[in-house]
């Protein structure tokens, strides 16, 4: 595979990582399969787009998207999900209802046209990477992916909060029994995971564009990432993203007829041998 295609795979993987890491944090700690995550991505993208167009600032767009989606996450968690805690099926379907609602609301607010988030001047155009012409913005996405990975790694492994989250993933009741207010950790994780979806929406909205049903597409990829990587594992979601991103590129180049199957075929095989994913642990 040429360097060019490798970069394509890596940059796509970086976006998937940002989106899917939020998904897996929530899934790992709260045991919620948040099917509204894709809708949060799309909504974040739209809000980021509007803010970026109004203010002319990509950074403000990012902050706006993350803040707004965290706020929606707050309403979702405190206003709705609290009524169905502990029942996985009800949680899943409730988030799906929320996804329907958010998607239709986005259609009302922004119409159904495709939008592309404007890229700041300094990230436009291309550059040469080892002699290969490549768009700067996509390299920026790759950088952001790495940045988020490092940030999350530090958060999870070198802070008290991170230790609580990790302990909560393994056994939430135990953490609670030790006198920690695990609810607050849960809430923080939910808001943080949602904000990552919003950030992903802005990043993806600038090169994959925003339109109705973009949410379902990114959700499908995120699910694949999390299933491959395993619940609540940062390394797992990193490796899952790389696999899905590279397989997606490889599949489109080498087996165009099977482009979709190339991602989900290996996933099915993996499931047969490791139903909990590469890094998932039974609880």
């Amino acid at each position, binding site marked *: 595979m040429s360097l060019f295609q490798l970069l394509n795979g890596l940059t796509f993987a970086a976006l998937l990582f940002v989106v899917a890491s939020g998904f897996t944090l929530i899934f790992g700690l709260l045991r919620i399969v948040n099917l509204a995550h894709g809708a949060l991505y799309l909504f974040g993208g739209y809000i980021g787009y509007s803010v970026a167009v109004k203010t002319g600032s990509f950074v403000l767009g990012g902050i706006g998207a993350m803040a707004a989606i965290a706020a929606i996450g707050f309403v979702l968690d405190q206003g709705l999900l609290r*009524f169905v805690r502990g029942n996985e099926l009800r949680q*899943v379907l409730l988030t799906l209802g929320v996804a*329907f*609602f958010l998607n239709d*609301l986005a259609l009302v607010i922004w119409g159904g046209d495709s939008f592309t988030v404007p890229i700041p001047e300094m990230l436009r155009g291309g550059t040469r990477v080892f002699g290969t012409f490549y768009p700067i913005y996509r390299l920026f996405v790759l950088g952001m992916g790495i940045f988020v990975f490092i940030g999350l790694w530090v958060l999870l492994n070198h802070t008290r909060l991170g230790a609580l989250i990790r302990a909560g993933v393994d056994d939430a009741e135990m953490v609670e029994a030790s006198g920690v207010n695990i609810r607050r950790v849960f809430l923080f994780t939910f808001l943080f995971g949602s904000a990552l979806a919003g950030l992903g929406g802005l990043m993806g909205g600038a090169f994959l564009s925003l339109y109705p049903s973009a949410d379902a597409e990114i959700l499908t990829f995120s699910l694949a990432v999390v*299933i491959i990587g395993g619940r609540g594992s940062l390394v797992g979601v990193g490796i899952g993203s790389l696999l899905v991103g590279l397989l997606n590129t490889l599949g489109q180049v080498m087996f165009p007829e099977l482009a*979709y*199957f190339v991602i989900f075929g290996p996933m*099915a095989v993996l499931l047969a041998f490791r139903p909990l994913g590469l890094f998932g642990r039974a609880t």
Partner: protein
Amino acid sequence: MTQPVSKTSVLAGMTGRALVIAGLVVIVAACLPMVLSSYQVGLVTEVLIFGVLAMSIDILAGFAGRTSLGHGAIFGVSTYVVVYATGQAGLSPWAGFALGVLAATAVASVFALLAVRTSGVYFLLLTLALGMIVWGVCLRWTQVTGGENGMRADVRPAALMSHSAFYWAVLAGAIVVSFAMWRFVRSPFGLTLRGIRDSESRMRSLGYNVPLHLFIGFTVSGIFAGIAGGLYAMFNNFVSPSTVALAQSVEGVLMMIAGGVGTLFGAFVGAAAIIVLENIVSSYTERWLMVLGITFVLIMIFAPEGIIGKLRAITSRKVR
């Protein structure tokens, strides 16, 4: 819920009152085409078909404690095979129907193999992912499935061309299938499934092969989903990837929940509620998707036991 289970009669466990109610429901259902417009007969036909799908999900969810988010795909595989067999391969509708159910059963058994080792949220996630693989294949295997455009064929047998004739056929099918499922969940095998639902570890320590039971349960449920899918092929004479999409699975699960998990026949009530709601709302507002989303949320929060479950709760309170 404490009817005596005797093994002497095929109607074992059905009280006289229940029998009378079932008879009345069937008679009323059979008379519907005489009073409804042809479009409404079509809607009721759809209710029956999706009721069977929802019931097949209920076998697992209500009696084995495993909710599948992949049954829409199993249902749709049957639809695809029936349309393909009659349209492309030129088989008779009945042969196509049989093949469709067979294919759905095969797919269900593969799903079951992969999924029975998991439970809870992993089971949801796995069945959802497996359903997506099926969807991806239907979408991408253009040469066979027609891709995005799907396939059309005159699947419906000539004798069932009229709305009411087809409705009666589906009604007859639904009655047979419902009865079969009812027998299934009340059989010793079904009781074992319930045991697994209530306490997996206890069943295991009692020496039951839990994965094998779940495997069989899943596969049997796939047969029924396949029957529903085959009927749907005859209903629409058409199939496209949206028939196997996640939305289909979710709709089935929602119908089951709206009716009441573990009530089996509540599936028809749930199917009717959802289909009628979609129809009424979409004729009044463009924003039906939003209304549907809100309904989802409200059902999950306020009526998780479903319509039939709620009714039962109310009546039992009165009895007391």
